[in-house]
């Protein structure tokens, strides 16, 4: 494992800037099962925050609450100056325009080419002109190293390529925050590497990122903050070397099996 240092992008921004994402005592229940039991944390501009923890610890649910894919039960989340609340859908559209998300299962639109996948949202949501949208697509595809796949359909691509297109699609909306929900869990190690590299480039470019990940080496290398979730709560928080000096027995046990 190489631990070459990358200057955290957050150093470029003054620390007093208001957080891009802030959880305020967020609870979330599915029926009678409480999945999030009051979590609070903040993500500053340009920060890379990794949510780690066992399956069922609530980390994916927490991530999906940020852009309203899951509706929170109580509490609130501030996202880019907009409030995500239990009832309010008023700000959801504004939030979604500013927050990009990438899923474990890529979720590209199968009937559209790579270019159409990327230009759809800018054209429909931001009313970007077609020529401008195409230029944008070429630009984000270059960022993920897939310029030659612009005319392909998703089914013609490997899993890693599809995931990079999914990242490009999210980037085309020029989001202020990117969410990654276990984006490499469906990929073999070789393809995982190409996706992680794209994410590392993004982080280095100053993108604010929240990741749910099982890639502990990646978290230790790139994260500005690691949040260990356990049984629906934020159990332990620390900088990127948190995993090498866990304080709670739960994290120690988790790291013991994970690294």
């Amino acid at each position, binding site marked *: 494992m190489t631990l070459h240092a990358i200057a955290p992008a957050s150093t470029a921004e003054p620390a007093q800037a208001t957080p891009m994402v802030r959880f305020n005592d967020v609870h979330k229940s599915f029926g009678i099962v409480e999945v999030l039991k009051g979590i609070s944390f903040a993500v500053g501009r340009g920060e890379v925050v990794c949510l780690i923890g066992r399956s069922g610890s609530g980390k994916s649910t927490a991530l999906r609450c940020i*852009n309203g*894919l899951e509706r929170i039960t109580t509490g609130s989340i501030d996202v880019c100056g907009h409030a995500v609340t239990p009832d309010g859908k008023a700000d959801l*559209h504004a939030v*979604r*325009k500013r*927050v*990009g*998300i990438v*899923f474990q*299962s890529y*979720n*590209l*639109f*199968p*009937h559209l080419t790579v270019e159409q996948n990327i230009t*759809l*949202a800018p054209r*429909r*949501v931001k009313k970007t002109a077609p020529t401008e949208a195409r230029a944008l697509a070429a630009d984000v595809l270059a960022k993920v190293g897939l310029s030659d796949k612009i005319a392909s*359909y998703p*089914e*013609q691509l490997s899993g890693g390529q599809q995931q990079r297109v*999914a990242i490009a*699609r*999210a980037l085309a*909306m020029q989001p202020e925050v990117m969410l990654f929900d276990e984006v490499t869990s469906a990929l073999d190690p070789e393809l995982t590497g190409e996706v992680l590299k794209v994410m590392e480039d993004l982080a280095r470019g100053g993108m604010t990122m929240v990741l749910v990940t099982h890639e502990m080496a990646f978290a230790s290398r790139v994260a500005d903050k690691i949040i260990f979730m356990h049984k629906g709560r934020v159990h332990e928080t620390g900088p990127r070397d948190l995993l090498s000096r866990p304080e709670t027995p739960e994290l120690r046990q988790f790291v013991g099996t994970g690294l």
Partner: protein
Amino acid sequence: MNYQFDFSFLWDPDNAYWRDILHGTWLTVQLTVLAIVLGFALGAACAIGSTSRIPSLRRAIAVYVEIIRNTPLLVQVFWLFFGLASLGFKFSAFSAAVLALTINIAAYTSEIIRSGIESVRKGQIEAAESLGLSRMQLLFDVVLPPAIERVLPSLAGQFVLMMLATSIMAQISTEELMAAASRIQSETFRGFEIYIVVAVVYLALAMALRLSFAFLAWAAFPRRRRLGTPV
């Protein structure tokens, strides 16, 4: 058995029956095309409605679909043509036929498209929502195109069945192919021959309809064209 086939009545100089056949065929084509276009529109609207968040709308559509799919088309036509006429709503035989076929095929179309809509993976809908697409944009850009692409073969099959079922419109004296055949039969007593001719015409129409749908799929779905996926 010693039957002499005689098709000469078709081009009888005094009474050119081929013209009647042609005229009947043309009416059958009109009925079919109108019912497909209107029925597809109504059926797609019902399919969208049946996935709406309004329970009463979903229930109303379900009732309509079940009533239509579980009663004979002939009863539906008679109900429109004779039943409503006694209430003062008068239709021409042709309008009644188009209306009945539309209402009938829309119910089947609705169910077929709904199955297509339900086959679109939830993740794609979440991705579209996350990108900020509105409900309408999501429906028309992300859900309906792959849904219809997937169910197009079933739709084509259903439309061919409906085209064949236009033959019962002879019962309300719509002058389509079957009605023309019946009249020719009663005038010439050449039942065997005329129904062979009619069968061949229906067969040709059915093949033409299937081919049209294959072409439509080829034209409308570039992915199929590019990747050579058969429709």
